[in-house]
C-alpha cells in the first residue's frame, strides 16, 4: 500500500513538473521568437497613395520600393513635364531607357492580347472628356471621331529604345501605371532576398508578395462600388499575386442622370456604360492585372473570359443590379462580406 501511494505521488509530481516545464518552454519560445521586422512607408506617387508594408528584409528596402515607384512615375507620368510620356506627347518621339522600352513592349503586347480594349494611345480621348479633370464635358461626335482617329496602339513604333507615335497621338498609361508600380516594387523585394512577405498598394492596385507572417493567406478587400472610400463588397484571400480593380465610381461626372465614368472605350470613344460597376482582376503581373481590369470593364464579361483564360488571370465582375460573378479560378478565394451584393445564381 505504502509503495503504491509513493509511486502515485512520484508520478503525479513528475507529471506536474513536466507540465510546468512545458508551459515555461512555451512562454520562453513566445518571448524569444524572432518576429520578422515590419517596415512601413506611405508616400504619394502615380497620382495616388503608395503604401508599403513589408516583413523581414534589409533596412531601407521599403524606402527603396518607394524610390523605384517614384522613378517609374517620373518616366511615365503625363503630369511630369520631363517624363518620357510627356516628351513623346510634345515631340512625337523620344529615346527612352531600357526599362521604359521593356515596359512599352509589354504594354503593346497587352493592347494586342485585349484586342485594343486596353489601348495606350487613349490620351486624346481622355483629354477630350477630361473626366476627373477641371473641365469635364460631353464632346461632339466630330470631336470624338477626331480623337478616335488618333487612338490606335498599332501606330506606336518601338525601335530599340526609341518610341514614336503619329502626330497628335497621345500616350496615356493611366490604366496600367499603378500595376506597373507593383511590378517595380516586386523587383526590389525579390532583389532583397530576405523579405518574407509584403503588401504594396499603389492606389487601388495591390501586390501581395511572399507569405503573410502568422497567417496562411493575405486578405485583400474589394471596394464596394456604391460605398465610401473604405467600404468593401467582399474579400479575396490569396497567396502571392497582383490585384487591380477598374470601376465607374472612382472618377466620373453626372449630367441629366447619366454617369460618365473615366474609363473611355477605345471602340466608340465614349465612357463605358455597360451594366458593370467594377471589375477586379487577379494576375501574375501588376501591369497585366491593371490593364486587364480596364480591358474587362470595357469588354464586359462574355468577351473578357477567353482573354482572362489566355493570360492566366481571374476576375470578379460586379454589376449595376448588385449581382456578382467570379471566374472559376478565384471563386473559391472570394467571399462577399456585404449584404447588398449576391453571387449570380446563388
Amino acid at each position, binding site marked *: 500500500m505504502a509503495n503504491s501511494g509513493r509511486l502515485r505521488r512520484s508520478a503525479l509530481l513528475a507529471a506536474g513538473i513536466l507540465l510546468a516545464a512545458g508551459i*515555461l518552454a512555451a*512562454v520562453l519560445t513566445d518571448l524569444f521568437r524572432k518576429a520578422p521586422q515590419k517596415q512601413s512607408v506611405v508616400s504619394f506617387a502615380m497620382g495616388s*497613395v503608395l503604401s508599403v508594408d513589408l516583413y523581414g528584409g534589409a533596412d531601407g528596402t521599403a524606402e527603396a520600393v518607394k524610390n523605384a515607384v517614384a522613378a517609374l512615375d517620373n518616366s511615365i507620368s503625363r503630369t511630369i513635364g520631363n517624363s518620357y510620356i510627356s516628351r513623346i506627347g510634345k515631340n512625337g518621339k523620344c529615346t527612352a531607357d531600357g526599362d521604359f522600352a521593356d515596359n512599352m513592349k509589354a504594354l503593346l503586347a497587352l493592347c494586342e492580347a485585349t484586342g485594343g480594349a486596353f489601348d495606350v494611345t487613349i490620351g486624346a480621348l481622355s483629354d477630350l472628356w477630361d473626366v476627373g479633370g477641371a473641365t469635364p464635358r460631353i464632346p461632339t461626335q466630330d470631336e470624338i471621331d477626331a480623337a478616335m482617329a488618333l487612338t490606335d496602339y498599332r501606330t506606336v513604333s518601338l525601335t530599340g529604345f526609341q518610341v514614336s507615335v503619329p502626330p497628335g497621338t497621345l500616350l496615356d498609361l493611366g490604366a496600367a501605371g499603378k500595376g506597373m508600380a507593383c511590378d517595380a516594387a516586386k523587383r526590389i523585394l525579390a532583389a532583397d532576398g530576405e523579405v518574407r512577405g509584403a503588401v504594396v498598394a499603389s492606389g487601388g492596385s495591390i501586390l501581395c508578395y511572399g507569405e*503573410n507572417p502568422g497567417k496562411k493567406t493575405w486578405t485583400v*478587400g474589394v471596394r464596394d462600388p456604391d460605398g465610401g472610400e473604405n467600404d468593401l463588397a467582399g474579400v479575396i484571400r490569396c497567396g502571392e499575386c497582383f490585384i487591380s480593380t477598374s470601376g465607374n465610381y472612382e472618377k466620373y461626372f453626372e449630367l441629366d442622370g447619366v454617369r460618365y465614368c473615366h474609363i473611355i472605350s477605345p471602340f466608340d470613344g465614349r465612357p463605358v456604360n455597360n451594366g458593370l460597376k467594377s471589375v477586379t482582376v487577379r494576375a501574375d503581373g501588376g501591369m497585366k492585372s491593371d490593364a486587364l481590369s480596364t480591358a474587362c470593364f470595357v469588354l464586359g464579361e462574355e468577351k473578357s473570359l477567353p482573354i482572362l483564360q489566355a493570360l492566366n488571370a481571374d476576375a470578379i465582375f460586379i454589376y449595376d443590379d448588385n449581382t456578382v460573378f467570379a471566374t472559376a479560378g478565384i471563386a473559391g478565394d472570394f467571399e462577399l462580406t456585404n449584404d447588398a451584393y449576391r453571387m449570380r445564381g446563388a
Partner: protein
Amino acid sequence: MKRRIFSKTDLILILPLLLAALAALFFLARPRDGARRVVVICGGETVLEVPLDALTETETHTFGGVEIELSPDGARIVSSPCPDQICVRTGLLTKIGDTAACVPQRVAVKIVADQNDIDAVAY
C-alpha cells in the same frame, strides 16, 4: 493513519509551480497588439502617430493646409483646400486600414495596428 498523497513540503513545491503555470497561460493567451493608432503622413513623412486609446477628447491638427480631427471614435479630414474634396467626403475612419488621402495636398490619414484583418483594398 490515513496518509495524504502530498506532504506539506510537496505542496510548497507544487503550489508555486501551479501558480507560475497559470500566470504563464494567461501570458500566452494575452491579447496581441491590435491597438489602433492614427498615423498622419505629410509629403512622405509621418508627422503624427497617436494611439486612439490615448485620446480622451477631440483634438485638431493641421498639416499641409489639411485640417484633421482626432477623437476617441476615430479620425477624419474636416477641411482641405483641394478641389475634389474626396478626402473630406471619406468621413470618419474607425477600422484598421481605413484611409483618407488628400493627394493634391500630399496628406494621408490612416488607422493602423500591428495586426490587421484586411491587408489592402483594391479599388
